[in-house]
């Protein structure tokens, strides 16, 4: 006779659903300043404590504490604050523009601004990021990418640098070290490793930065990237942005229950850090640590950024159908902009008035950029690239069959 109980399939569930509060104790937080900062040449296996704890710098009073507190000038912090605020305001305006049917679709990064913006400060010209659709902060923290050009892409209009071929938000800016975003999740993670291998093959000094969400870590490319990065000791920062959600799916469904995404790195022989993604100083410091390691031929670093997706997945999503409406308000790591602002004010390097002025400046800049972009048309008023542009760039040269199809399109239409 069988003495074992009937087996049961375990299907992970979030604690919070609409009408029920989330129990955030699963996050297993460490107090600010509690974790050691190992030397950057630490063997991967010796980073297990930082992969399972949480690197934090800013405490509840906005003070920078502990060994990870980066030596960073207030001017840089103000630049970071400005870029985060610019990203947030840009997102809010584009969500509005989507509602007004000026663009077909948008994805905001509400609550996750610190991660892209602080890492952008650490990366150098010539480095290459392989972002997802939620790292617009990498572009919005630069002054050499015009806001109106970004909006033209979102509107797929006549000045869209991608000629109307790509969905909104899937930007490409080689000159800014921002690789073409793909709609296929995870693919870019292994490409980042390949780019870093190429830099090493050429004896270059540039590094790559790969990006992936918690949900997409379940794709094969995630583990493939870890394997290749480890095998070839590729100079790459492997960023996992754990915002707890993949559309409606809680991070436990990607394998986060009872384990951290950072800890995956240790098993693959990769140094790993788990970091407060809403703590601008911690993001800066951890990115610096990983970049230094990569530049010194000490290999890749996997960083799990703990954060929360403050907004809907996209403009096509309604999160109130699967999670508590006020969830973000209860997320224990708060709001990255509010926390850096508090820190700067505590340093006497910022004030509510300056914040207000900055916000107005940014709004004015945004308004002007949107007006400029709209002067080139929008998807919905039909001011888009010609149908001819549809046939270009499939191959380097237009092959005979596409020449024939372009002619047919001319005479026959769609």
């Amino acid at each position: 006779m069988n003495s074992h109980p009937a087996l049961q399939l375990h299907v992970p569930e979030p604690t919070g659903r609409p009408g029920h509060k989330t129990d955030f104790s699963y996050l297993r937080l460490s107090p600010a300043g509690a974790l050691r900062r190992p030397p950057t040449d630490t063997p991967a296996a010796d980073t297990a404590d930082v992969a399972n704890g949480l690197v934090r710098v800013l405490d509840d009073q906005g003070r920078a504490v502990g060994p990870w507190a980066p030596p960073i000038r207030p001017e840089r912090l103000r630049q970071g604050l400005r870029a985060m605020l610019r990203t947030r305001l840009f997102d809010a305006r584009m969500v509005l523009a989507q509602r007004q049917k000026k663009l077909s679709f948008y994805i905001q990064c509400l609550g996750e601004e610190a991660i892209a913006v602080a890492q952008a400060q650490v990366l150098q010209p010539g480095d290459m990021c392989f972002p997802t659709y939620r790292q617009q902060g990498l572009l919005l923290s630069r002054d050499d990418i015009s806001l109106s050009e970004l909006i033209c892409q979102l509107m797929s209009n006549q000045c869209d640098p991608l000629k109307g071929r790509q969905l909104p938000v899937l930007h490409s800016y080689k000159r800014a070290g921002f690789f073409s975003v793909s709609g296929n999740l995870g693919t870019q993670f292994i490409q980042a490793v390949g780019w870093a291998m190429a830099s090493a093959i050429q004896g270059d000094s540039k590094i790559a930065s790969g990006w992936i969400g918690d949900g997409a870590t379940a794709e094969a490319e995630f583990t493939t990237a870890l394997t290749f990065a480890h095998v070839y000791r590729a100079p790459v920062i492997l960023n996992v942005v754990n915002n707890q959600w993949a559309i409606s799916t809680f991070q436990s469904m990607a394998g986060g229950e009872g384990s951290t995404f950072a800890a995956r790195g240790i098993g693959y022989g990769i140094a790993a850090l788990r970091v407060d993604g809403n703590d601008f100083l911690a993001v800066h410091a951890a990115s610096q640590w990983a970049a230094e390691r990569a530049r010194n031929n000490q290999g890749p670093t996997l960083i799990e950024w703990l954060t929360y997706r403050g907004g809907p997945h996209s403009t096509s999503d309604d999160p109130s159908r699967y999670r508590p409406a006020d969830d973000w308000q209860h997320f224990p790591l708060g709001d990255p902009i509010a926390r850096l602002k508090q820190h700067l004010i505590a340093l006497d390097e910022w004030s509510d008035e300056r914040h207000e002025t900055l916000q107005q400046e940014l709004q004015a800049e945004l308004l002007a950029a949107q007006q400029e972009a709209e002067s080139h048309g929008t998807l919905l008023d039909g001011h888009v690239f010609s149908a001819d542009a549809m046939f270009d760039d499939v191959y380097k040269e237009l092959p005979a069959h596409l020449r024939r199809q372009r002619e047919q399109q001319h005479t026959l239409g769609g």
Partner: protein
Amino acid sequence: MTMIQALRSALDVAMGRDDNVIVYGQDVGYFGGVFRVTEGLQAKYGRSRCFDAPISEGGIVGTAVGMGAYGLRPVVEIQFADYFYPAMDQIVSEAARLRYRSAGDFTAPLTIRMPCGGGIYGGQTHSQSPEALFAHVCGVRTVMPSNPYDAKGLLLASIENDDPVIFLEPKRLYNGPFDGHHDRPIVPWSQHALSQVPSGHYTVPLDSASVFRAGTAVTVLTYGTMVWVADGAVRDTGIDAEIIDLRSIWPLDLETIVTSVKKTGRCVVLHEATRTGGFGAELVALVQEHCFYHLEAPIERVTGWDTPYPHAQEWAYFPGPARVGAALQRVLEA
């Protein structure tokens, strides 16, 4: 040179001319490849130019896309075409689309080599001919040589081409031509004129077919091993067929095809891959579209059966000279 030596020579020439050419794949480095195509390259160019890779096709092609974005020209190997499927996403969604989706901001100038085809008792996973799956993907080029001279010239042209190229190598032809008469002794490449391969640099242009055998009675559209099978069927039947070796499967050389079919008025399409949705269907459609008023008989297709590639029934599956000869006869009598 054998086809293996010709391919190796192409890689050697490409690596010697351009530091950006990087060769890697499973067992490709120290060991020189399971088919010896990359033998000696690591010793000559060093481990950072020719190296072994983990057993991850998605990883091999995915890293190559990243290297291409950096500015390298990777030539990667998938051990058998039957094993490219884990890399399908990187090929279709990434390599093929990168130039288009970024409006030329990024490109993927990679070459993906893979031994393909059957006739070697390779069973289900060492015999497949997946070219139709690539031909359906806009943005990649698919190429398949049938002899050492073309193999080297086409591989060099593929490596130098800025589009991603799927380079299919019929492993049945690695050491000698094969006309499908498996019961007869194999003739090595050394006894064939097409094994005369220059040691230096030359290319065979992409998008260009070759008239492998001129004839007047019927046009045979084919590529890879089947070029030689068609030739065997011509010898067996005495039918004066014109054999077109497509060489580039897609994009292809429509002009050479149309000129030939308009001349002969009859057409047989021949490939080893399974029939339904195979590349032959596209060829039949193109000929129908462009040569309809010149056709004197229905277009025939001789292909592998719509089954996985069997082991014991190898020669019942493989479209051999008897099956091809019968089709030529039917088309002539129609």
